[in-house]
């Protein structure tokens, strides 16, 4: 075997080794998931983040929300959201009243986006995810207005909702700050 031939063989072996290593690395993980696009997942992708990421197109006012509420929510939450078989959505005692003070939107919820998100994903109880985005914006505006967190004619949409400052915005403390990302 000439020196040149030996070098060529060694180089070939190196290429072969790299190829084998490459496929071995892939083979370590089964890779059986089906690739999808974000568009394919749009119907499921309903989470809204505090900075407004995930809020859909649309808008609603407290006045519009009052009508939706009377038709679809008052059965459980009572007229004007004052409570029925399900919780009142208005008012709340100060959290200094004790560790077992009932938590409400007004006294506890730190972000208004949570109200939109939870209403859209979970309500109405018997028919979740049947409200239109417009209806959810309107209901969110209505509840925030009843609690005097926004004005009676303030429209809620993807721009205004994340800017709403909830009364308890700074009231929550991470239990283990060192474990927070």
């Amino acid at each position, binding site marked *: 075997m000439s020196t040149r031939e030996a070098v060529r063989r060694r180089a070939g072996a190196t290429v072969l080794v790299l190829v084998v290593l490459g496929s071995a690395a892939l083979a370590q993980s089964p890779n059986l998931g089906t690739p999808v696009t974000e568009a394919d997942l749009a119907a499921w992708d309903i989470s809204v983040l505090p900075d407004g990421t995930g809020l859909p197109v649309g808008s609603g006012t407290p006045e519009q929300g009052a009508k939706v509420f009377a038709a679809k929510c008052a059965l459980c939450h009572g007229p004007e959201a004052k409570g029925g078989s399900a919780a009142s959505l208005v008012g709340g005692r100060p959290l200094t009243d004790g560790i077992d003070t009932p938590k409400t939107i007004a006294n506890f919820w730190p972000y208004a986006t949570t109200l939109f998100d939870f209403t859209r994903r979970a309500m109405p*109880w018997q028919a979740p995810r049947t409200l239109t985005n417009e209806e959810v914006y309107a209901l969110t505006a209505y509840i925030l207005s009843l609690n005097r967190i926004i004005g009676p004619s303030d429209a809620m949409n993807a721009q205004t909702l994340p800017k709403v400052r909830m009364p308890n915005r700074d009231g929550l403390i991470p*239990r283990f700050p060192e474990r927070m990302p």
Partner: protein
Amino acid sequence: MPRTRPSRELQPLEAVAGNGLLHRRAFLSGGAAFAAAVTGYTLSDTAAAQGLADEPSSRKAGVPVQEYGTPSPYEKQVVRTLSNPKAEPRTQHGRTPHHLLNGTLTPNGLHFVISHSGNPDIDPARHRLAIHGMVRRPLVFTLDTLARYPMVSRMAFVECGGNSAPLFSNEPLQASIQAIHGLVSCSEWTGVMLSTLIEEAGIDPKAKWIIAEGADSLALSRSVPIAKALDDAMVALYQNGERIMPGNGYPMRLLLPGWEGNMNVKYLRRLKLVDQPMMSYYEARTYAPILPGGKAYQFYFLQEVKSFITHPSPGLRLAGPGFYEISGIAYSGNGRIAKVMVSADGGRTWAQAALQEPVLSKAFTRFRVPWRWDGGPVVLQSRAWDEGGNVQPTRAEVIAKRGQTAKPVTNPLGFPSQHYNGPTSWAVDKAGEVKNVYA
């Protein structure tokens, strides 16, 4: 020379703490001393004294074997207690009867369940798990494809953040251990490591959290730090060897060993990698306990080191003076249990408990102490340490930091606060009745 059984005169059991707590050596030395203890101190009124005869059940062929076995009809009382048996439109709780179980593993039908909107009826062939958001390529998995992945099995407890909440009452509430501590259970879980799946999707370095979402009617969602997802999180498919029970997340759930139960999202259908926590209803409202002064803890994550005595406990009346085994459960979201101490005099003196091997990380550890009850009033209490040096705080320490109610809690199924990991104290009176007390 044949081994002879030592008499109790030759090997008396050593009392190591007040009110009759004995040295755990009784268990460690292979049972001989234990037998001596039993022989020495149980009542002489035994069945043997009456003569033994064949029972009718032993003199005929038995009943047919069942396709799926159920416990003996004599065990009908060993069931979960239900907070909302008619499934009214609110949360349902099913609590584990710890006082009627032993060992470290919770039978699947008795694993605690908290169902915020009922158990969804999911066709496993139609269920999908999506991973998307801040990843290189979004992926969707079927149950069948996940079943082809390398799997791991591990024991892990799951505990509701609200377990033990009645102990925040300013006065001790009289309720069974099932009502007080029934929202924790322990299983062997088998599934695919979450790290495998999200690494296949390719993690964007800017991603910090994963939103986990269920396929239930509330699409229950929680935000999980990526570090936990990459550490020991699992997409669990099996519970104690069989497919996960509907109440525990069938056909798949997120398992975050040692972390708050609600974060172990059931019916897992979507994992979205994001750069900020979602502040979901359950993390920005429900599982955020109010502190004295009006602030609240959020992202509690851990179920901290805890222990409680299951035997005896309220409802298990002692039959009279003599030998008993005190036994209970200890666990920590931080790792293995290192030590459990037991007191029979309200915390004045302590005996070290024997720990049942194997002692596993973030799983139930059964502890036991031999006890000779003299028939007088005693207060039983346990305290656990984990391998990280974390110690179960006293109730006074918990209350100083976390507060207690202003008025006595009357509903054992309510949640005046969450994440109580102080001790539980059981007072035994002269009649052998066991009550919840603060000591």
